Every structure is written in C-alpha cells, then in structure tokens.
C-alpha cells in the first residue's frame, strides 16, 4: 500500500486508512517500545501512546521526508518520556540479569514467537549485558535499521560519535555473544 496515499487519506480523517496505517506499522512501533521497556504491558501502553501522538502529529509530517524514521523517532521520544516519568522505579534495562534470558516466557505468545530461534535468545541475553548507550545504538541502527545521520539527529549527538559508538557496540555485542555461547550455529 502506497504510504503517501495512506497518509493523505489519514489527514482527511479516513478511519479505514488510519487503521491500515496502524496495522502496517504496529509491529515496528511495538518492537521498538518492547526493546526499551522489556515488559509486555508497558510496551503495549507506550506503543499505544506513540500511535496517539503519531495521529495528532500527522499533519506536521512533511511528505519530503521518510515516514519510518519519523515514526520511529516519535516512538523513541514517547519511550524516553515514559522511562523518565517512571523514574521512581528502576527501568527494566537496569535490572540485574539472571542466568536465564530476560525474556517473556512461552506463555507470552507474541514475544515468544518473535524470539523462537536460539540465536535471537542469545542476542537478547547479550544485549542485556551491554551498557545502555550501546544497547540503544544496537536497537536504533542494527535492529531498527536507522541511518547514522538519523540517529545523530534523534539523539542529538555528533555523527562521528554515533559512528564510533555504533562500531563499539557491535563489537561488544559480538564478543558478549561469543563469550556466552559461541556462534550458536
């Protein structure tokens, strides 16, 4: 479905178009929220809040820019706002990591389905051992596929810093994976 047409219809108030847009991007928005929150309920709340914000800001989206980075940037901001608001309790990413993966168990079907492969389980466990800036870099660049320039703008960091941090984060993750379980072939 053509995104420009979809957005134009959403701006006119076409509810079906809005539903299609939500369906098309909900897994990306929820995926990003889940990586930040590491909690099913919180991720769902944050993803919902992100979509509400996306809806209210649709008219400010410029058609000349790419939609997915704009959408992910808004979601990222909502996640950060949520984490700041919930500062009274420690965020999930700072919780101590146990022996088992800090992942929802098989009873939580969506995440369990997403993390079926052993390599992914290993990656999630290794991600938990990275520092927060490195984890965020992996999340935005390698998982969500954002460009370095977009990440620099989103995090308000110099491009050189983002590039070096991204490389370091990948190396750290690869070394953590190697230490934890080899190549998990």
């Amino acid at each position, binding site marked *: 479905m053509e995104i420009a047409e979809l957005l134009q219809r959403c701006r*006119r108030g076409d509810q079906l178009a809005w539903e299609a847009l939500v369906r098309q991007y909900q897994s990306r928005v929820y995926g990003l929220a889940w990586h930040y929150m590491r909690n099913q309920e919180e991720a769902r709340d944050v993803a919902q809040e992100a979509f509400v914000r996306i809806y209210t800001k649709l008219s400010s989206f410029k058609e000349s820019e790419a939609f997915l980075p704009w959408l992910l940037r808004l979601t990222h901001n909502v996640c950060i706002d949520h984490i700041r608001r919930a500062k009274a309790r420690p965020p999930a990413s700072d919780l101590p990591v146990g022996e088992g993966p800090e992942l929802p168990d098989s009873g939580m079907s969506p995440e369990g389905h997403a993390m079926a492969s052993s390599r992914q389980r290993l990656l999630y466990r290794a991600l938990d051992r990275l520092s927060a800036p490195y984890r965020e870099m992996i999340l935005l660049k390698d*998982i969500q596929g954002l460009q370095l320039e977009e990440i620099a703008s989103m995090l308000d960091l110099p491009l050189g810093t983002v590039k070096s941090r991204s490389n370091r984060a990948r190396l750290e993750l690869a070394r953590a994976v190697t230490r934890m379980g080899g190549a998990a072939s």
Partner: protein
Amino acid sequence: MTCREFEQRLDAGAPLSDEAARHVDSCAACRELEEIARVSQSVAPPTSDALDMLDMLDMLTRDVMARTTGSVCEAAGDRIIDMVDGVLDGFERDLVVSHLKGCPSCDATAAALGWMRSELSSMAAIDPGEEFTAAVLRATRPMQAVQHAEPHEPWWLRLWERPRFTWEAAYVGAMVLWLLFGAAFSPFRDVPGRALEIARSSPVQPASMGREIWQATGGALMEKTRTSTPGLNRLKEVGEASSSLASHGTQALGSAIRGDLSGSAVRLKDMGGDLKRIYDGLTRRETQPATKPQEA
C-alpha cells in the same frame, strides 16, 4: 652466478640448480647462507607436532606484539566490522584476514558479527497481537472528529465547504448592517429613520418617493462619508506607518545580525520617523468642516 643472484634465488625459494651448486662450492659465504636456510626450513617439520608448532608460532607472534606495539585486537575491531560489512577490500582486507587466521578470539567475533547482522534486523518487528489495533483505534476515535487540515487546500475553500458557512455568512452580514446603521457610534445611524420618515409622509407615488428618499438619505450618506474622510485618511496613515515601522524593525535587526551597524542605525532612524507619524496620526485633531443644513 654472482652472490647477489644466489641470494635472490634463495629468497624466492627456488630449488638449487647446477649453476647455484657450483657457486656454493666456490663461495664460502654463500655456502654458509645456504646452510642456515636449510636449517631454518627444518624447524617446522611436517609431522604430528605441526599443530603444536603452529600454536608456538602464534604465541611467539603475540609475545612479540605485546612487547612492541601491544595487542592488535582492539585496533583491528573497526576493520573487522568494515570487512563484515563488505566495505573493506584489497590490502586492508588481506591484513584483517591474516590477523583472523592467527587470532581465534577475533575470528569468533568476526563470525558472530556476520550472523548477527541478519538476526538483529529480523528482531525489529514484534507482533503486538490483534487486540492492539483495536485499542489504538479506540484511543484515537474521539480525535477523529477533529479532522486533520489538508495542507494543500486553500483556506477559503475549506471555509466555503463547511456546512455552517451559510449561517455564519448571514450572521456576519447582520452584524455589518447593525454596525453601519444600528450602532450608537455609527455615522449612518439616522439614515434608515429618515428613509422611513419620508416613506410615511409622502403620498403614494413610488417614482417620486424613491427620488426623494435618495435625495435625503443618499445626500446624508454622501455628507457623512465626506465628513468621515479625514478620520479615515488618518487611520490609513497610522496603518501605513505601523507597517513601515515593522518593516524597518526587521531590517534593523537583520543589519545588526550581519554586523552592519551603520545600516542598522539608518533603519533605527527610520523607525523613529515611523513612530512620529503614528503619534501624529493618533493625536491630530481634524477641523470639522461646516455642516450644511440638510433638507428633510
């Protein structure tokens, strides 16, 4: 064969030819060199101990690196990433491959970096479940009454297409009529009363009555407009001076930002003139022209 040619053959690892053998027999230095080369080749025998020997050589390399430049694993990190990303080629790539052959740790890291790329990108989307869409639609439904403005549609067209437009236009029209003929401060307030008075007092002669009404009310309108003109002109002057003040202010600010202080000073002076015009326009009292007696 000269000694130099013999050294070149030895360096290239070429087998000993008859000519080279004759040279070795006749030259003591080259004979010694050939002996050393034969001994050094026999250090790595093709036996079951070869693996241990390779380990020993790796260890030797690591020891040498530790005592000279330090471990290269840290320095190799960026180039390993570039190689995995496929942006490293030629000599740089050969260097990294050479390092990976002798460094199992970096080799494992490079392998992990390789499979991580596809795995990480496949972790971007997580299905939140069917009920999530319904929850989002429920949350945004109350807002859908407020439609998003169409950015490319002109404002007057959106205004025109609104269903309430006719009622609003009628309301605005009534307000204008009241302001012109009904408000206490309106200069045309007595015009409808005069027209009504003439209509009541005149005999029923539509043609002449219309003319009389026009002479009375139209004349009054013309007179009111004439007496109001200086005030309107004054307001117009004040408006123009205000606009000029804003324009000069912007130019003064622009000049100051560019560092053009003389230009900024000129604009500030212009702003002073604008302010004076505004003040004069607001405080000047017009001499009212003598009003002519009106015919009823």
